[in-house]
């Protein structure tokens, strides 16, 4: 069980990296708007489909 002494710091390091990524994403403004990008993605998808198969 003493492997815990090794594993725990490693997992904590990995999750710390995730926190760092979150901090970066927040600071660079990627999380400013949590709703619109989701809606916009739908429109763009449809536009691409329509361009590919003009009716």
């Amino acid at each position, binding site marked *: *069980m003493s492997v*815990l002494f090794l594993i*725990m710091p490693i997992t*904590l390091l990995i*999750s710390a990296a995730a926190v760092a990524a*979150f901090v970066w994403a927040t600071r660079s403004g990627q999380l400013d708007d949590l709703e*619109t990008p989701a*809606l916009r993605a739908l429109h763009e998808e449809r536009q691409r489909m329509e361009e590919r198969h003009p009716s």
Partner: protein
Amino acid sequence: MNPPVPSTLIERSLLAAAIDQAVACAHCGLPVPKALLEPRGASFCCHGCRTVYALIHAHGLDGYYLERERSGERGRPARTTARKYEELDDRDFAERRCLPLADGSASVELYLEGIHCSACVWLVESLPRVVPGVREARLNVGRSLLSVIWDPAAVRLSAVARALDQLGYAPHPAASERAQAERLRDRALLLRIGIAGFSAGNVMLMAFALYGGAFSGMQREFSALFRWASFGLALPSVLYCAAVFYRGALAALRTRAPHMDLPISIGIAAGFVWGALNTLRGTGEIYFDSLTTLIFLLLVGRFLQQRHQRRAASAAELAQALAPSIARVRVGDETREVEASGVRAGTLVVVAAGERIPVDGRIAAGSSSVDLSLLTGESTREDVALGDRVWAGTTNAAQELVVETEHSGAQTRVGRLVESIEAAQRERAPIVKLADRLASKFVVVVLALAALTLLVWWGAGADRAIEHAVALLVVTCPCALGMATPLSVSVALRRAAAGGLLFKGGEPLEALAGRGVIVFDKTGTLTDGTPRLESYAGPEDLLRLAAVVEQSSEHPLAKAIRRAAPAAGALRAEGLEVLGSRGLRGRVGTELVTIGSAALFDSLGLSAPEPIAAKLEEFGRRGLSTVLIARNHAVEAVAAFGDGLRPDARQTLESLAGLGHELLVLSGDDQRVVDRVCAGLPLRESSGGVSPEQKLARVRELVRGGKTVIMVGDGVNDAAAMSAATVGIAVHGGAEASLLAAHVFSTRPGVAPVLCAILGARKTLRVIRRGIAFSLAYNALGVTLALLGVLSPLLAAVLMPLSSLTVVGSALRSRAFREEAA
């Protein structure tokens, strides 16, 4: 490729028509009134929808209807206004609000009314196709904030704004520095939430191991490892993320204003200090799992609350919205630009057509018409000529004017108004939230109970006693109590906004839920501000002929005549001649028709025969405006116009009175007019001839008398009273200043939204009370267990999130504003 045409929608509406005769509006899908049915093609329920549909169609944006159908949203009747948005072209507006970009284009941020679904995103972001010269439009649905990048050389900002208005999304300038500040504030809190979540999640994993170990045994070295790891993980959460609560608590102590942050901070601090001590000692309970979860949940609650908060407008913003800050002064033959606030009395100021007038003064040269909409909220134009007075903030609509300054800056009518709004905002006592009112008692009770626990258990050893006291402090830490209000408010405000009621924060809800005095403005609020034909005495056919003569006139009374007598198709008036300032004469067939005021007819030497003259006098007494109509130089008819109640006004007022509110009408209009309009309404008082200053004084007096005062208005003349009232509500179509001063504003026409706001607020408050009751019950349970000494940290760790979940569930189930605003 041609964009898809919404043939499905039209077909479907035609099909529906065949089945039950009710034709759906091609834009919003509501039934079309019989009178507006079109024999072929699309029919519309209102003029707004027709405008929007035509615009969408003309630019090949019919995809909007498909998008909307797919998003499953119902359409809404479009609300367009006739505003010109010329103030957006001012140079100082550009300097303050617009950001120049490297390639010569500029960006600006605008708040939009009426954003409600994903199809709106699509339509608004298609703006570059509607207005050439717009490079990009990006919409933030949550904030209704649109960021536009456009080429100032190719298109004026006012044209962009008008296009948005025509699409049914009336824009309002947003201070970009303020939007930026809000963004940074949101980011900072989001960071705290993320880190608190990381701490809470990982500490919880450690806690599982520790609780497991507590039941089945665990080697000392491992339990020490987990405890120290928990301590390390809790540090950022307790020291960094929770700092917002400590700051709030300190402020509450300093100002002696009760606040929820105080009991929260006490709980966190007690738990953390004792937990840290126990970690060092290697024995006893640590509370890091409960504490980190608590901090995470509370921060989420705070985030929801913050996202709905919009700061009240500052005086500088108000002044900017109302009057330009640059004046062009003429000295000799030279014209130069100076600060508008520093212009001396007697100085000549040049105002080009389309510009806003920067000072109060008299016209020294030129004649024009002036658009007063910024001051009155009504889009009326007034003709002005040499010697007439003009006011700062109004727009010169037609030709260049030279104005001799009388007052500038803070001395202008607008300047004094801004000052009074600012003073009113300063003096207004903030509404203390129900939860915060509870907080002070809560702290006292909890501390007393903790002391009692300490005392009761002292005999069993100091360690045990402190243990139980800390357990009590942690378990009573008002997580659910702190979340009940923000969550319920957040849910309610979101629904309200979707239904067209915009709250600038949660505080007005509690005031709206109680009983109080509601003060209404008349013109533009209870009435829609457009005159209607109320009475007519004379031959029926003459009214039709008058309508033909007035065919192309834009005068409000001319429009009222046309509405009352839809002109007989083929008839055309010939030889139209404008008489005086308001009169009109024209030939229809063989008849010569003259229309004008009694004064005009006097000057023409025509007098009304006895029955008409009597009617004229009677209408005047009733507070109606009158127009005489003559056929072939003989006065035969008199038409009387009045501004009628909005269709929803009577029912709304009756419902409000039924809810126990006292209703008042304070109007700047003539007392006779007020009496006529308000006849039969359940009012305690209806006063006419009330100046803006008197309105403000009345509202202040009522507030000082300890009453909850709700002021409903639309104009700049109501703005000061609105900001002095407990809650100010601006109705749709109000002046920009009234929107800035109000705490709540409606994007739907009529006064019914006031009733919606009050009913919705009552439901919301019921939900808040329910949440508070739940969390207090949990706390009582926790306190009992702690006093008995059976409250283990595990039990506390389960109880706490459970109570929060109950409150969250209860808040989300709330139906407030669901029916009201639909």
